């Protein structure tokens, strides 16, 4: 394996998708339909990352009571519905995770 070539190629295919939209930003007038679709990007991608991280453990679906990620996520979800401050949501989620983890291992 030519490591220099590997690093350069990885760098190119990582950097280009990140930079091309930024580079073209001021030259590009996005069609209305694309602008509308972009509002859904964070909802879609972040939700998928949340679900895939909390429902799966070691590559297996872990839909059971001894997976503390599920209950902690549920608490964070409810707290986020009740108020908007990110700090409060994160704290509530982390505290409930810690309590559950302690309770499960006791």
């Amino acid at each position, binding site marked *: *394996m*030519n*490591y220099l*070539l*590997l*690093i350069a*190629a*990885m*760098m190119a*295919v*990582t*950097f280009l*998708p*990140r*930079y*091309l*939209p*930024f*580079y073209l*930003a*001021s030259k*590009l007038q*996005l069609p209305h339909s694309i602008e*509308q*679709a*972009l509002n*859904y*990007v*964070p*909802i*879609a*991608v*972040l*939700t*998928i*990352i*949340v*679900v*895939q*991280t909390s*429902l*799966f453990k070691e590559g297996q*679906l872990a839909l059971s009571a001894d997976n*503390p*990620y599920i209950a*902690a*996520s549920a608490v*964070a*979800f409810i707290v*986020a*519905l009740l108020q*908007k401050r*990110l700090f409060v*949501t*994160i704290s*509530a*989620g*982390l505290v409930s*995770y810690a309590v559950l*983890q302690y309770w499960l291992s006791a």
Partner: protein
Amino acid sequence: MTNSKLHSAIEGARDTLPLVFAAIPFGIVYGALAHAQGLPNWVILAISMLVFAGSAQFIAIILVSSGATLPVIVLTVFVVNLRHLLYAVSLIPYVKKFSQSLRLPMAFTLTDETFAVVYNQATRDNPTPHFAHYYLGSAAFMYLNWQLCTWIGLVAGNRFPELTSFGLDIAMVVAFIGIVVPHLKMPSHWACALVAALSGTLTYDWPNQSGLLFSAVIAIISGVMLENAFNKKIITKKEIS
């Protein structure tokens, strides 16, 4: 740098703190895993410094050690990183007023974490007037933490095999929940999240995170279609009355 710009940069770093914590075990495991696969130290460090893409780095290391050819590795890294294209396009309205020399480091350090934090900031009722500084404060913190953790993993080697089960990624999960939920304002937003959750679960075992990309696309399309259907209904109702 003026005081208020510095303040914005610090604010960006501060808002990223839970996600920096969540990234620690991944950085260390990346360094340790790459070391265990027999990659030279300079290669392991150079990938973290020059590529800077968490999950893509993991997949690349695993592919290198399984003897995959260069085109296969590069194509896989490309697919895994395509979601960054969606992030970058979503950020166009907020970055277009900045010079190219600022956009370059912003693009280079665009990750899931920084995207979540800066998008949240940009769409607030009273966003920071120094968005680029806020952004780079967040990104710099993630970047430096990643370099440090890669190095720790290299040095510590395989002494922490259980590191991934430390559960630090719960911080990322609850932070992302706190960022997404306030954006769920219309029924079409809820539909998008629901489709994303269902499809993300069903396509979890698809290779190289292609399930993530596929699920994102169908969730976005579902949201847009529902929004358009609702708007049409409202318009026809108005015409009738």
